[in-house]
């Protein structure tokens, strides 16, 4: 694999010297040195908040460094804007894609090119690039029909059309299935072999070990080490990244005999949003004392399912959701909460917490039932006490109960929200993306908190895109794809590959369970979703989608 070790002669393509970036509250980058050779896949490794994104923004000209020097192909430059960066030959694929849903692929690409390119000619060039690098995309399709993996391909093609000498990839695999990751790696290796340098930003150690020639590790805005990932172990790289050993979670065995606390039967719901996903005949059960995980590439119905479960989008059919034995499909979020349901949403600021309110008042948001009210009046002391307790117990780093929610980092706010929900002693807890954007230490802490809660008998449903996380904490795993949910399999009896397959919408016919004797009438061949949807359905040509396993 790594035949291109950075032993090439000559000057580095990009060299950073003493880069420092100061924001009013933080020093985001502090004296960073970095050199990327031609044809090198160079990892920038670090936790959230380590300064990776700031550094990339500086290289791409989005922001200017406070101090330090950038040398491009041996010459000192000041990158003043992304357009300037593209002119130099620097391309960037962002973590969150910026495509216009109502435009076609070729129109989207044309928007990012200078001048007014001829669309037919551009479509030809897109086809040429996509064939050359194994990035199958139909230039005439509308962007809203693209899967996340395809959107990423469009972004990559958009960069490649400008013949970059340096390609920056920001957390590229966070939205991909394991199979799509393999395809991406093949493309990146081919690019590197042709002499393009790649800056690969990630916090996933195993990927970096597999793909990258060299790695620069950041922690707290500073470079803490440079290494050849292939020569390192996961543990040694983790030490460089977080400054200590990678924490592991402890768990007891599942018994699987608890009562059913949350039961969903035949939940179907159309979507009002033209780009939303309709839910089709969702079935699931979560028992007391177990954690059920739902895997899937984002945008396959997770949002819609969560809205239906939490009550933010109540159903027409009351019996579709049973909460501790009560038909809850039509109940409001408040009524469901009274039945013992707690919920940690995916968006922390603005949904899980009110940005400009203090933590104390944000505690009140959902925990008002825990003795915080008297005759409709807020018991201020109890409200502060709850927040203080949550902050202490869940190790929330903040300025105290009076700190505004928006002043907290994403990880600390997530700990506060998870803590707030757990402190209410829920009978059922639903958690969406529990550790999304949370640093490794806090993520382990949150997972452990969920496992501890499971031990007390709570039924827990976790919806996550991080497969490693689901394999670590869940007892059973189901997969959501194209608005349908696969049957759940015991985590110990499944594999990453199998879950990856299901993420593309392919799973064996559900065997009729004992308590669900009726067969599904409309279960034809499973419509593919995720990676395969919906293009593969329309053009079953098989060109592309090379799931190089």
């Amino acid at each position, binding site marked *: 694999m790594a035949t291109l070790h950075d032993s090439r002669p000559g000057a580095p393509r990009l060299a950073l010297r003493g880069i420092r970036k100061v924001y009013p509250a933080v020093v985001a980058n502090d004296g960073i040195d970095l050199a990327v050779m031609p044809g090198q896949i160079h990892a920038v490794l670090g936790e959230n908040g380590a300064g990776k994104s700031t550094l990339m923004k500086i290289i791409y000209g989005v922001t*200017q460094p406070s101090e330090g020097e950038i040398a491009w192909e041996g010459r000192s430059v000041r990158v003043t804007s992304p357009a300037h960066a593209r002119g130099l030959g620097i391309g960037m694929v962002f973590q969150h894609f910026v495509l216009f849903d109502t435009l076609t692929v070729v129109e989207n690409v044309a928007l990012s090119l200078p001048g007014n390119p001829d669309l037919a000619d551009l479509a030809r060039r897109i086809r040429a690039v996509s064939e050359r690098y194994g990035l199958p995309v139909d230039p005439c399709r509308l962007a809203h029909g693209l899967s996340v993996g395809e959107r990423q391909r469009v972004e990559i093609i958009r960069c490649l059309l400008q013949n970059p000498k340096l390609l920056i990839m920001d957390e590229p695999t966070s939205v991909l299935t394991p199979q799509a990751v393999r395809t991406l790696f093949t493309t990146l290796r081919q690019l590197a072999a042709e002499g393009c340098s790649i800056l690969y930003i990630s916090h996933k150690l195993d990927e970096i070990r597999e793909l990258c020639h060299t790695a620069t590790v950041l922690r707290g805005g500073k470079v803490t080490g440079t290494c050849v990932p292939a020569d390192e172990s996961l543990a040694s790289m983790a030490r460089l990244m977080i400054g200590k050993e990678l924490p592991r979670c402890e768990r007891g065995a599942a018994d699987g005999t608890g009562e059913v606390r949350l039961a969903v039967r035949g939940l179907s719901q159309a979507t009002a949003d033209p780009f939303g996903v309709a839910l089709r005949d969702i079935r699931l059960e979560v028992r007391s004392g177990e954690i059920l995980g739902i895997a899937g590439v984002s945008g396959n119905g997770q949002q819609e399912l969560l809205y239906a479960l939490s009550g933010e989008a109540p159903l027409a059919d009351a019996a579709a959701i049973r909460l501790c034995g009560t038909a809850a499909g039509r109940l409001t979020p408040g009524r469901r*909460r009274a039945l013992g349901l707690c919920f940690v949403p995916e968006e922390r600021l*603005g*949904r899980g*917490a*009110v940005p400009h*309110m203090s933590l104390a008042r944000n505690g009140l948001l*959902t925990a*008002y039932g825990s003795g915080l009210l008297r005759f409709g009046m807020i018991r*201020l002391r109890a409200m502060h006490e709850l927040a203080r307790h949550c902050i202490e117990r869940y190790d929330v780093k903040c300025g105290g109960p009076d700190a505004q929610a928006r002043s907290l980092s994403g990880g600390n706010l997530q700990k506060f929200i998870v803590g707030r929900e757990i402190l209410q002693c829920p009978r059922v807890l639903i958690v969406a993306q529990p550790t999304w954007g949370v640093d490794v230490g806090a993520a382990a802490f949150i997972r452990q908190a969920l496992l501890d809660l499971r031990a007390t008998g709570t039924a827990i449903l976790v919806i996550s895109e991080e497969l490693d996380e689901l394999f670590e904490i869940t007892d059973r795993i189901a997969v959501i794809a194209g608005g349908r949910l696969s049957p759940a399999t015991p985590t110990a009896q499944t594999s990453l590959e199998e879950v990856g397959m299901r993420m593309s919408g392919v799973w064996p016919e559900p065997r009729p369970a004992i308590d669900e004797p009726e067969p599904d009438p409309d279960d034809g061949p499973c419509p593919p979703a995720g990676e395969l949807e919906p293009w593969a359905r329309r053009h079953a040509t098989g060109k592309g989608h090379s799931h190089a396993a």
Partner: protein
Amino acid sequence: MLLELEARPTASRRMRVLSPLAAVALTLLASLLLFAALGKEPLAAFRVFFLNPLRDVHALTELLLKATPLMLIATGLAVGYRANVWNIGAEGQFIMGAVAATGVALAAGDGGAWTWVAMLLAGACGGGAWAAVPALLRTRWRANEILVTLMMVYIAQFVASWLVHGPWKNPEGFNFPQTRLFADGSLLPILVEGTRLNAALPLALATLLVAYVFLERSFHGYQMQVAGEAGAAARYAGYSASRAVWIGMLAGGAMAGVAGVAEVAGPMGQLTESIASGYGFAAIIVAFVGRLHPLGICLASLLMALLFLGGEQAQQFINLPSSISKVFQGMLLFFLLGADLFIGYRLRFARAANPGRLSWKT
């Protein structure tokens, strides 16, 4: 040396309090310049405008009398503004409150010593009903309440105008567009003998207290503010967004209506065509200068009353147009918005030699 505007890591609490004070100071300073520009001796004009209204007890009661409706309206508006419900039509709600109370007073005629109590209730209902229309349009059909409340001001003005020119015109009033003078039972009790200060002031102070408890201590007030600030969070927690709109609009409307009663059953003693005279709009400034907080509103309404009375004094004694008080209101709001920038930002002196930094750009 370069001046640089830099975002503060967290909003400054000190500046939140200092900013209205700075705005007042700057307004006073600018007034001196304005008087000079108008060819008046600045200090003398300043004394007439700002100190005359504070010269003795009688003047002070006039100040409180003027501040009372502002206090009432601004308190009601602040409840809505805290929930991002932008009712700017308090002027119309004030008029409809006055109209409803006048209806009661005219129907009661000379009978009943407690008619004014019924008038207060009718006024609250009148103003509330006028605010209920935009609330309904907003919650049902998402009509923008800023536009609807403002447009309803003009409807209210025409309704009042029609009434005093038509059915309610005083038959013995030499054809002036105004109603009969109210009977004694239809007037608010006077607090200090020999002055015009009436029972509306304690009512306004009580309203401030109720608003404080509602906004800062009650769960309903909290839910309403969550719904206003973060709709998704309110939905997540199961709070009703439309209830927040209703509470916000009705509070503003009802309090403006009561203020209208305080005017017709207080110093006016009858309904006239020009009953509102800008209270409803001035109260918007009062609410913001007072930081949407009851205590701040109390102080800000006194300040705004001073500007009103100062304008009258300036007209009387130094021959300036009374609209100069509107200029000062505008300046006050202007300086406040300017000073508010420094709640979220601070000025820094940066060395121009720093290469990586762009002033103002980022």
